[in-house]
């Protein structure tokens, strides 16, 4: 079999970026949660909040550390596997991605150290401020990354001279047409990830009857937050979908599994899309609902995949199913959050074992939703890397062979497997230790750029 460097490079990028993304998506949400908890500690002077903050700070440190390690690889992928893309877009993406690095360094040098190690050494107000700044910094970082990504979906503010993009309007390029939708959708996704992890871990501690008073408090607050965040995410997700319909109709058609442009399109609950024959098998559908969702009119006209010739269509089954996985995860989250509201009576949500077990399992759902959402948007842009301007085949490194790409793909898989297993194993050690007050620790070894040093749990 001929190894196609484009296909393998896409798999490699999908692998390294997915592996990387699960860490920041969690830390962004958790940073905001920490700011909230330390804010409560500052306001109420209740030592419970302190203890909760101290525990989640350790978790934050380990996950943040893993995110930094896996992120180093990302900054080289553009050059190694997509050098034609990097060459063409460097005038815009170079500064934008560098600003992300600059933000991260500023954040680490100035505030991360205070957040991780400053408790009790700086006034509580300063510590709270540092927590807010770290949280703010994580948003600035995602701002730059999502700006770069959104620009690849809805390029703007540039002109092409001899195959090289030059920025003519920074504001139009940075705040391009899909940016705010993507940013809001991702910010909420981070909140949901942080929220469901905190809720799941609190539920787990309640099942284990560890430090119950503290985790009841934490669970209660988190469920209130999720009650508002989950429906808000559905609403923002819908807006994001409508924005995509405007700019990338083929992607939306693939999400819906709708081949023909037509009025009154049905919403497919199930189908096996068949790209070769440009049709679906085994459709289970609700009449006219897709038209209503997309145009807010039961007989609205929605675009079909066949508007584009087969060679310019994305992989429909992947987009179609990834979208359904994301939506099901989202609806599950809404359901669980609202069940929590129904169980408020007599505080049943903190006693019912089945609900606590459900929350425990739900910890994984935001991660699945985030990854499948990214698969929808990235695979749905294919065959383009810069939408309607540069294809994957044009963007790939010309000197790259399939064998080279396969070698590094397997290599990164092995490296990440080791790092991931060690990190996950250590994280469970931190969780198992629970929310007891940490032992005496030697402060000299604590460095903000080595976030892992904030966790004081033995490895074996």
């Amino acid at each position, binding site marked *: 079999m001929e190894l196609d460097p484009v296909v393998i490079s896409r798999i490699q990028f999908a692998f390294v970026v997915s592996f990387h993304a699960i860490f920041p998506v969690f830390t962004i949400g958790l940073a905001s949660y920490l700011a909230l908890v330390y804010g409560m500690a500052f306001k109420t002077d209740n030592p419970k909040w302190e203890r909760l903050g101290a525990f989640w700070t350790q978790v934050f440190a380990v996950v943040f550390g893993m995110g930094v390690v896996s992120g180093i690889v990302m900054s080289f992928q553009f050059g190694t596997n997509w050098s034609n893309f990097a060459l063409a877009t460097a005038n815009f993406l170079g500064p934008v991605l560098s600003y992300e690095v600059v933000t991260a360094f500023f954040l680490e040098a100035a505030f991360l150290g205070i957040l991780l190690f400053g408790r009790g050494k700086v006034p509580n107000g300063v510590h709270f401020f540092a927590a807010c700044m770290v949280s703010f910094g994580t948003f600035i970082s995602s701002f730059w990354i999502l700006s770069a990504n959104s620009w690849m979906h809805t390029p703007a503010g540039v002109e092409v001279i001899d195959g090289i993009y030059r920025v003519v309007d920074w504001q139009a390029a940075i705040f391009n047409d899909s940016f705010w939708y993507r940013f809001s959708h991702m910010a909420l996704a981070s909140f949901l990830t942080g929220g469901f992890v905190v809720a799941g871990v609190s539920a787990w501690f309640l099942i284990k009857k560890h430090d119950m008073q503290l985790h009841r408090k934490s669970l209660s607050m988190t469920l209130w937050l999720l009650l508002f965040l989950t429906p808000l995410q559905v609403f923002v997700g819908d807006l994001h979908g409508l924005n995509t319909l405007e700019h990338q109709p083929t992607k939306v058609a693939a999400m819906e599994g709708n081949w023909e442009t037509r009025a009154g399109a049905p919403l497919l609950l199930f189908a096996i899309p068949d790209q070769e024959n440009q049709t679906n098998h085994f459709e289970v559908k609700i009449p006219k609902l897709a038209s209503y969702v997309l145009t807010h009119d039961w007989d609205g006209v929605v675009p079909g995949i066949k508007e584009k010739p087969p060679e310019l269509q994305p992989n429909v089954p992947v987009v179609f199913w990834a979208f359904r996985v994301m939506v099901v995860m989202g609806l599950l989250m809404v359901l669980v959050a609202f069940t929590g509201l129904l169980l408020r009576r007599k505080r049943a949500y903190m006693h019912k074992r089945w609900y606590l077990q459900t929350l425990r399992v739900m910890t994984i759902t935001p991660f699945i939703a985030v990854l499948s959402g990214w698969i929808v948007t990235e695979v749905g842009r294919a065959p383009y890397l810069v939408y309607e301007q540069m294809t994957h085949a044009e963007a790939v490194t010309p000197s790259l062979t399939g064998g080279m790409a396969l*070698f590094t793909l397997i290599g990164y898989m092995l490296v990440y497997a080791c790092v991931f297993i060690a990190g996950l194993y250590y994280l469970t050690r931190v969780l198992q230790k629970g929310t007891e007050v940490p032992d005496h620790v030697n402060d000299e070894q604590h460095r903000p750029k080595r976030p892992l040093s904030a966790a004081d749990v033995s490895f074996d």
Partner: protein
Amino acid sequence: MSEPIFDLTYIWAGIIAFGVIMYVLMDGFDLGLGVLFMFAPTEEDRDIMMNSIAPVWDGNETWLVLGGAGLLAAFPIVYTIFLPALYIGVFLLLAGLIFRGVAFEFRLKAHTSRYLWNWSFAIGSTIAAFAQGAVVGAYIQGFETENMRYVGGAFDWLTPFTAFTGLGLVAGYALLGATWLVMKSTGATQQWAYRLVKPLLFVVVAVFCVISTWTPFVDTFTADRWFSGPSYIWLLPVLGFLCVIWLYRSVSKKRQGSPFVATMGMFIFTYLGLLASKWPYVVPPTYTLKDAASAPESQLFLLIGFLFVIPIVLAYTAWTYWVFRGKVTADDGYH
């Protein structure tokens, strides 16, 4: 598009060149300790070696990321030719750095699995050092390009010459690591480090002489620059050689700090010599600084951010080294 009044290309060249030498010097000594790690006589020596770099190694790698990101923004062609040309080498470098970083953290928290992290740290550091040395060799060799793209093969970067420069840098970093350890340790560990310096210095000087003799055969441009008549650049190897003598004498006199400073001097003059050999080419033998530069508006846009953050990184770095000055012992830290 109007051209700016002032050309930022040279400012950016200065920033990147500064970032690279900062990285080489600072990550150099902690990578060097990794190279020497498994040769240390006792586990206590290894504890001391780790403790001597624990507070600083992470900040050292800041310069790599800063340089890499700045390179894409300021000299995209360098980025988009070097990375494809060094494809396998870049992977080895990253894998080595990742293993080493993770091993570093977990070794400090591990007890029974400690030997595993020891080896990860040593092997990861050695691979990373070798890959960097091979990059230097590949840079001297030059790159096969066409229309701003790399068109050579997957292993053009790995020749006898670059393998030799790779081993040379492993030895060079080991020397930096040994002199760093002389400065930061006492007793038996320091005696061990002292014993390492002269043999390593001998290897480094020998490798340097071989590379210098070999270079004119792989690269005629460099040969012309050095041998087409007397020039000020000959001052650089002379100064480098003075550093070698200084290092030798200061180790004989059992000085504590000067061996490290002298070794840094050797690195700096070699680095400047290398830059002088290639100036103004950044992708030898085809593209100059000017060819590789990004658009002026992009250079300016990012420069604002860099001018803000570089002083902060420098101040933070200086503060860290100041706080952790002086000798370390095996008990400094991890229990």
